[in-house]
């Protein structure tokens, strides 16, 4: 095959070079690579296998190592997820985000109000002294753990065992609560357990793709490249976009429903109404494989497109057209993300997406899938391993047999494992800390001082002198600055472990280099704590006696055995060299499984399911008896609730709607991306977006400084006039204060200064995408706003050619090699297991050049 390597400015060209392909074709390979300045391929000592951790897509990559340092990254051609591609964040902030001189290299403890360096013994002793004293005087409920969507399986599982079997606290959660809790909740309600029904390969085969509150072009840039390559192919799928902003997705959409923030449920009810009213549903499938049709019919009975159009402020004809595309396309893929998950009625709206697919039986076949997306690279593992409070292996806390299984596995008393109530979600953990009943809070790899809602409140809680805060991170984040003990952690490329992306693909990330200074891996820190605390099993053995990550992986495999997320057929060895593997991977599925529920049998058997479900309006648990009485027996549940308006609506004091989100160039609170020169230059500082009508009404021009305020606080930033819908203000959530003196100062920039403390009743995910605000001009422009021109923050057409487009220049050069090798496909791309026959054909994706 013709090989051609070209150089592309991947800041200017976020999605890189197009490689169009037809329906049911294989997505061509394009190997993306970026090396440090002055480094050539010939200089590289070795390539070390990994996968990218700068979004949830899970792009497989190899890390270039020279003289013991990471100097470059390249996409893995043979991996089923990315076929060699990487996005701008992976190219420019993966190893670069780890190699910055700001890295923490020694533990810190607070002495006389100041953080001072110390050795590990001193830091760990301070933690264990406080921990022991509190366990003795106040008991396990005094301890809370708030972790991440960034750690590895082995680390989450260690943390889950420490929390549930060592200490016995229900107060464990991760920032996955902010990004992906609704994905899990919606799948548990509809299908009985977490686990993505679809696969990325459904993009290859679909006739229509619906993106619900999912700005895929910026949140998962490589996945969007796959969609773009279908769009540019000979038989493009129809695209329907639900988003209040004029995103790149909206620009390619056949129907763009720019709904008023907070009204998703009204739209979903109307779409279902249309599918039912027009007879576009599959009666046979619904009868055989679902329950709850009558309730669903009753709920949507009066939800005509006109009624929803009035509430959502979109045209009824557009709703009808979207419904027609859904109802009449042979194969439909739906993807859902924060526009639904962080908005009003999050779980209910996301369940309606599942319901649309169930009504048409569009599941478990190529091109027919649902991707209830994740926001973070390892969010899935937090959910699986139970570091988010759920029980490991998608076990059901209300099922005593499941609790007993864990007690047997860990050799502990089942009463130690907290299962008397739902796990405590993140917002409630902080509430208990605020009230003083949680006095020990261990935060790992996350930055709540910027990422949680209503920041002035979160800062007050973290600074409470009675609250003992441990922070384990790469950098001295805003949160770490408020800690009592700071532990320097090793990160990506500096440790070995596994993690799983949105579509259940498990990747291995091998250690490429040593961590800086005295930084320890998160796993070693957790194991050290467990050992120092002397946690033991019933037979007196150490609770955690793993010597390293591979021990942890094997322990996790045992925990996952027989559960929906079965890892027993995967090993480090199988993951080295081949493609990532989609769970379940076991005797029945030796190469993993591309799609779930092909046979229409769901995980709702009461003895097997992860949850008995909830009432979607209130979050009331259904309970074992009532659930069993509905005899779900493997049928999916058409769960629903009526529309109820958002709790904070615009009024005369705060007349506009406020929503927040990501830009393509940054991740989270910029701890890595803000330390990458090309990414920092592409989106250097905060802004807000206003539509042209609102700007004119308020006398505001491009780049003017404004104050945006809500009942909680204010931000003061320049304005980008973009094509966002009327009466709506958008702010990117990345811009905290670590690079601006550490605190908000006179001109706060963090989007969450304004957001409200409220959460979905089922998933407990905070509502970041709806608040009431007012906007006032406070200063004249010094030039355009610092917002990228290449993304949803693109200026309105009239201003576009007066503005310098976002480019990266030579800093942002990456190479792209198209069609380097034939595309990988399932299952040939999977390395055989030890007992499986050796595949005789050519195998892609070995380390080293193809």
């Amino acid at each position: 095959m013709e090989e051609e390597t070209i150089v592309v400015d991947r800041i200017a060209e976020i999605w890189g070079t197009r490689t169009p392909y037809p329906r049911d074709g294989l997505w061509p390979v394009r190997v993306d690579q970026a090396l440090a300045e002055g480094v050539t391929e010939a200089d590289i000592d070795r390539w070390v296998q990994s996968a990218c951790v700068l979004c949830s897509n899970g792009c497989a990559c190899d890390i270039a190592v020279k003289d013991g340092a990471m100097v470059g990254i390249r996409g893995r051609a043979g991996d089923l997820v990315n076929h060699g591609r990487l996005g701008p964040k992976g190219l420019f902030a993966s190893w670069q985000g780890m190699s910055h001189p700001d890295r923490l290299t020694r533990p810190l403890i607070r002495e006389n109000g100041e953080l001072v360096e110390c050795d590990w013994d001193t830091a760990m002793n301070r933690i264990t002294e406080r921990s022991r004293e509190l366990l003795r005087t106040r008991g396990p409920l005094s301890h809370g753990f708030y972790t991440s969507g960034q750690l590895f399986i082995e680390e989450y599982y260690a943390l889950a065992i420490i929390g549930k079997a060592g200490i016995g606290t229900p107060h464990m959660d991760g920032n996955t609560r902010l990004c992906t809790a609704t994905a899990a909740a919606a799948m548990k309600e509809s299908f009985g357990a977490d686990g993505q029904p679809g696969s990325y390969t459904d993009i290859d085969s679909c006739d229509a793709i619906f993106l619900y509150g999912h700005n895929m072009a910026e949140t998962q840039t490589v996945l969007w490249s796959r969609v773009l390559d279908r769009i540019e192919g000979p038989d493009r799928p129809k695209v329907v976009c639900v988003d209040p902003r004029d995103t790149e997705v909206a620009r390619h959409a056949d129907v763009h429903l720019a709904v008023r923030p907070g009204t998703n449920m009204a739209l979903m009810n109307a779409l279902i109404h249309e599918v039912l009213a027009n007879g576009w549903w599959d009666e046979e499938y619904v009868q055989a494989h679902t329950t709850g049709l009558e309730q669903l019919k009753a709920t949507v009975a009066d939800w005509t497109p006109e009624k929803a159009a009035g509430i959502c402020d979109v045209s009824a004809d557009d709703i009808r057209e979207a419904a027609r595309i859904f109802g009449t396309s042979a194969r439909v893929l739906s993807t859902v993300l924060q526009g639904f998950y962080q908005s009003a009625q999050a779980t209910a709206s996301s369940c309606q997406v599942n319901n649309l697919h169930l009504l048409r039986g569009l599941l478990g076949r190529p091109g027919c899938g649902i991707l209830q997306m994740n926001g973070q690279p390892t969010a899935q593992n937090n959910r699986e391993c139970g570091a988010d409070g759920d029980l490991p292996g998608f076990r059901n806390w209300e099922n005593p047999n499941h609790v007993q299984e864990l007690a047997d596995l860990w050799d502990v008393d089942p009463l130690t494992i907290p299962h008397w109530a739902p796990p405590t979600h993140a917002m409630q953990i902080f509430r208990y800390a605020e009230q003083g009943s949680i006095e020990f809070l261990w935060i790992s790899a996350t930055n709540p001082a910027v990422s949680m809602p209503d920041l002035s409140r979160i800062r007050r809680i973290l600074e409470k002198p009675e609250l003992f805060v441990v922070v384990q991170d790469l950098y001295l984040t805003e949160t770490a600055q408020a800690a009592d003990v700071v532990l320097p952690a090793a990160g990506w490329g500096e440790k070995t472990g596994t993690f799983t992306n949105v579509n259940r693909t498990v990747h291995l990330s091998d250690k490429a280099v040593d961590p800086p200074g005295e930084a320890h891996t998160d796993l070693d820190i957790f194991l050290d704590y467990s050992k120092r605390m002397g946690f033991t099993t019933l037979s007196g053995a150490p609770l955690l006696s793993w010597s390293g990550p591979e021990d942890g992986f094997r322990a996790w495999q045992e925990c996952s055995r027989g559960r929906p997320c079965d890892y027993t057929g995967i090993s480090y060895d199988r993951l080295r060299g081949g493609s990532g593997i989609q769970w379940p991977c076991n005797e029945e599925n030796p190469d993993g499984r591309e799609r779930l529920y092909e046979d229409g049998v769901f995980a709702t058997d009461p003895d097997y399911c992860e949850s008995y479900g909830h009432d979607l309006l209130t979050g009331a648990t259904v309970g074992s008896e009532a659930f069993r009485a509905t005899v779900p027996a493997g049928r999916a549940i058409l769960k629903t609730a009526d529309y109820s308006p958002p709790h904070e609506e615009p009024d005369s004091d705060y007349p506009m709607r406020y929503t927040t989100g990501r830009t393509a160039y940054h991740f989270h609170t910029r701890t890595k991306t803000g330390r990458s020169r090309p990414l920092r230059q592409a989106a250097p500082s905060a802004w807000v977006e206003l539509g042209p009508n609102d700007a004119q009404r308020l006398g505001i021009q491009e780049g003017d400084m404004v104050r945006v305020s809500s009942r909680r606080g204010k931000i003061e930033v320049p304005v980008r006039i973009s094509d966002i819908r009327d009466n709506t203000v958008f702010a990117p959530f990345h811009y905290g204060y670590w690079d601006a003196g550490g605190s908000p100062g006179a001109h706060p920039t963090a989007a969450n200064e304004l957001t409200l403390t409220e959460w979905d009743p089922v998933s407990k995910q905070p509502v970041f995408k709806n608040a009431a605000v007012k906007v006032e001009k406070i200063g004249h422009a010094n030039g355009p706003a610092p917002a990228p021109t290449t993304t949803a923050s693109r200026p309105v057409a009239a201003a576009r050619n007066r503005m310098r487009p976002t480019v990266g220049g030579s800093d942002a050069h990456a190479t792209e090699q198209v069609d380097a090798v034939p595309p990988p496909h399932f299952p040939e791309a999977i390395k055989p297991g030890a007992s499986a026959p050796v595949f005789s054909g050519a195998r892609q994706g070995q380390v080293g050049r193809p």
Partner: protein
Amino acid sequence: MNVNIYLGMLHRAETTLAESFRQVADGHASEPDVYALCHTLAKQCDEHSDRLQPVVERYGEASDGEPERLHAEGLSTTRQGPLGLLRDLQDLYLLGSFVDVTWTMLKQAGSALHDEELLDVVAHCDHETSVQLRWLQTRMKQAAPQALVAAR
């Protein structure tokens, strides 16, 4: 016929429950879920009274003149702190249970009377009341360990 007595009891109880939900919502506004959901459920109680209205118009509502021996007067004020929240939710649970069982008795009457309108109202409202109770129980079970064991 004494249906009018039970209609009167239920109407008063739903009104009391609505007021009490609002009282707890505002008294515990620092618990965002309690604040939001108690207001939502208060509105549900108001709606129940509205739905009952056509039935009340047919049968009337009355009191049996007996003194109330078990007082279910609603919450006059809210308590404070984690334990106070638990106690207040428990009071709501008691009021809700009274509403719930009163709906059940009206269902019995409606069945005996073959009154489809009454049975439709009961089916809708009693289901919502039972969800209210389930939510209260879910929320109390969540709050109880912390309030009873860990709170200072």
